[in-house]
């Protein structure tokens, strides 16, 4: 494998970033869009080439030694194996489509060049994260994507709410990052290496390392993953992150960056396999997140908020699979989810674009005729996420549920997962019905301007819809291409492929029926009865709790933010004042000394001479007396 090729793959988006930052404003919007998209497309083409020519063995490319301390070496290198190629494929692939989409979507924005610059930078860091050969390289990418996420959420920085959302995302991520860093430190001190390949061999051969420390390291790394992948209890930033432009939500907050946690856990599967207790925690956290987020999504009225909570819920399902040790299943769901969630977000972006920024579903409706392509693609994606046979979501979600069912005799995880996916079907079709069916509920002016989006927006939609349709083909139960492809990555062959027995068929049937029930309830409520979600003030009871997201933000506010504010006030009122008194006092003393000392400089040469001679006498006396006291 060619080193240069990998470097081009990594640096192409970075060059795009540099171009857009420094020349973007002059170059004009069309050039900016083309350069931004092409730079990512180049990476995609190289990824395709790598994918076609990949060997079974992982390829490690060491550019140079970065840090070396005694026996502890960190190289600046890349690791190209099946996992990273797979991730690169959908990061750059979906990235290219979303860049294409953004050309049209952001065309009216005056800061389009910086938007593309940030997107390119994001792709650069995401590639760095994926192909880094050690934990530190991964951490660079990890922090970089967090930065880009911050920049893009707060892209419309003139709105203070958006800024707050950006800051929230950043701070929530920092909490997770701290966990990740601690995990890196523990792993480094335990095994004297951060390199993935050597880490794997070390861990497999090491017998004398205490299980407790491995568990702590795994837990710390998992906390890092909960921050980036929006799991309980750090998920609250993701729904707020929808403040960013819709392509950003699609690319970063649905398809790619939020899967970084899953990537990390999959990358370190050998470590997590050593810590079964942590795996249990991961599974439980994943299941809880899936359920909580799904319930919140049931009553949201903002089209993007629904999708955001849906994303959190789906990520929870992925973590459920990870916790059960079924890494390839989680990866499978990551891929299919990337397809249909990107499609859904881009579709919602198309709707918002058509309605000139309206995001409230209560003011939509009847868009089916005005936006046929958007409608059909979103419908396909919704069917896919709901898990209707034979779309992509059906296969991946079904595998997760099947794994949960087979895992142990305790079926609680399976039940929770199934309820979450029934809810998924419900809220997705609630979205579809409210948006596209019945009559239009917006203003007359909006109705007048309703139109289908231009082809730059619809083409990515169509491609993603097709992928959501057929994406399941990569891992059909029985003969899964994905499982074979990823097999070299995993040490345990714990997850043998499901033989398609009666239980499995039954589970599939239950899942499909559950999805159909969810769709049916939505159909009954929102299409047949034509219910419109009530205004904010009129929501009562359980719905109110759900609508307000279980008051999690408020709880966090009162538990963490307010005490810290109180403490800060205390420090500002008392500690800072005494500190400043101390500091200013020092200044005053110095000043006073200087004023008094100035009087010694009275300009009289005679006085200076006296001072000089007396000084000489004192020095001589000191030197003379010194010899008696040594």
């Amino acid at each position: 494998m060619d080193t240069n090729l990998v470097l081009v793959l990594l640096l192409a988006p970075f060059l795009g970033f540099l171009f857009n930052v420094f020349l973007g404003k002059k170059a004009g919007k069309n050039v900016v869009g083309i350069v931004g998209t092409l730079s990512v497309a180049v990476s995609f083409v190289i990824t395709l080439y790598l994918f076609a020519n990949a060997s079974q063995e992982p390829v490690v490319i060491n550019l140079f030694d970065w840090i070396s301390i005694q026996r502890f070496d960190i190289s600046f290198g890349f690791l190209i194996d099946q996992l990273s190629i797979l991730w690169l494929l959908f990061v750059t692939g979906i990235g290219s489509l979303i860049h294409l989409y953004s050309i049209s979507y952001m065309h009216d924005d005056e800061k389009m060049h910086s938007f593309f610059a940030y997107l390119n930078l994001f792709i650069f860091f995401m590639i760095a994260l994926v192909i880094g050969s050690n934990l530190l390289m991964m951490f660079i990418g990890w922090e970089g994507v967090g930065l880009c996420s911050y920049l893009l959420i707060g892209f419309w920085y003139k709105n203070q709410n958006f800024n707050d959302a950006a800051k929230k995302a950043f701070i929530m991520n920092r909490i997770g990052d701290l966990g990740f860093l601690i995990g890196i430190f523990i792993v480094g001190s335990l095994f004297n290496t951060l390199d993935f390949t050597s880490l794997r061999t070390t861990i497999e051969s090491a017998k004398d390392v205490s299980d407790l420390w491995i568990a702590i390291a795994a837990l710390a790394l998992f906390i890092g993953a909960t921050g980036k992948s929006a799991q309980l209890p750090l998920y609250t930033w993701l729904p707020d992150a929808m403040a960013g432009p819709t392509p950003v939500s699609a690319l970063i907050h649905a398809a790619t960056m939020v899967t970084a946690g899953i990537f990390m856990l999959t990358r370190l599967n050998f470590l997590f396999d050593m810590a079964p207790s942590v795996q249990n925690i991961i599974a439980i956290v994943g299941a809880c997140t899936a359920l909580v987020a799904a319930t919140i999504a049931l009553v949201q009225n903002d089209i993007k908020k629904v999708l955001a909570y849906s994303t959190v819920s789906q990520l929870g399902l992925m973590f459920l699979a990870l916790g059960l040790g079924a890494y390839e299943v989680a990866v499978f769901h990551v891929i299919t989810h990337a397809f249909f969630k990107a499609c859904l977000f881009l579709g919602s972006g198309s709707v918002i674009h058509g309605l000139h920024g309206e995001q409230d579903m209560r003011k939509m409706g009847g868009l089916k005729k005005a936006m046929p392509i958007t409608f059909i693609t979103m419908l396909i994606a919704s069917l896919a996420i709901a898990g209707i046979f034979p779309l992509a979501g059906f296969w991946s979600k079904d595998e997760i549920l099947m794994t949960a069912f087979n895992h142990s005799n305790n079926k609680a995880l399976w039940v929770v997962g199934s309820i979450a996916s029934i809810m998924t079907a419900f809220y997705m079709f609630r979205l579809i019905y409210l948006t596209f069916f019945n009559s239009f509920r917006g203003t007359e002016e909006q109705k007048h301007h309703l139109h289908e989006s231009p082809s730059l927006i619809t083409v990515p939609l169509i491609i993603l819809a097709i992928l959501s349709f057929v994406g399941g083909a990569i891992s059909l139960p029985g003969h899964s291409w994905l499982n074979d492809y990823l097999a070299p990555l995993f040490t345990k062959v714990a997850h043998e492929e499901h033989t398609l027995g009666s239980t499995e068929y039954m589970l599939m049937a239950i899942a499909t029926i559950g999805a159909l029930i969810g769709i049916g309830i939505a159909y009954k409520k929102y299409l047949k009865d034509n219910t419109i979600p009530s205004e904010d003030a009129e929501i009562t009871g359980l719905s109110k709790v759900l609508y307000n997201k279980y008051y999690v933000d408020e709880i966090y506010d009162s538990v963490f933010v307010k005490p810290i504010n109180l403490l800060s006030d205390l420090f500002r009122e008392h500690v800072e004042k005494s500190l400043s008194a101390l500091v200013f006092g020092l200044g005053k003393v110095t000043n006073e000394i200087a004023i008094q000392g100035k009087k010694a400089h009275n300009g009289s040469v005679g006085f200076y001479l006296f001072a000089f001679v007396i000084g000489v006498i004192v020095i001589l006396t000191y030197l003379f007396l010194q010899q008696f006291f040594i």
Partner: protein
Amino acid sequence: MIQIPDIANATPIQILFCVLSVITLATAFLTIYSKKPMHNAIYLVICFTSISGHYLLLNAQFLALVNLIVYIGAIMILMLFTIMLMNLNKENEVHKPRITRLGAIVVFCLMCLVLIAMFMNSKPIADGSYDVTGEDYQSIQVLGKLLLNEYMVPFEFASVLLLVAMIGAVLLSKKEKIEK
């Protein structure tokens, strides 16, 4: 350590030394004390001459001559010229306040005390016998060899220093043109 001089059995050289020392100290004091600048200069000339006598006593003839030429012949003449140039031969100097004069005397005593204490306490390196090695270490020949071999570079630098001083003196004392 301090020997009380045996006046009765004093050798001629000792008497010479005492006389020269008295002259030196007395004229030095008068140099400071006298009010007229011209008298100061004259007293200083006598003081330096007696120091040249000390050099001769120490058998350092070349040094004695150089001292005469440089100090008396050059420096003192320069000072006399300056005094005459400024027309300073008047008793118009205001005395310093009494506290200053008192301070000066106290400092004088202190300085004497400290320096003498230090020198008396220093440990002699050579023993007191002063054996003559036969080598004439003070002749002009020896000095010249030393100066032009070992101290070649400082010697040249001294000449450069004098040149620079000459140029500087000319520049400093030149009357500045009043620029309009």
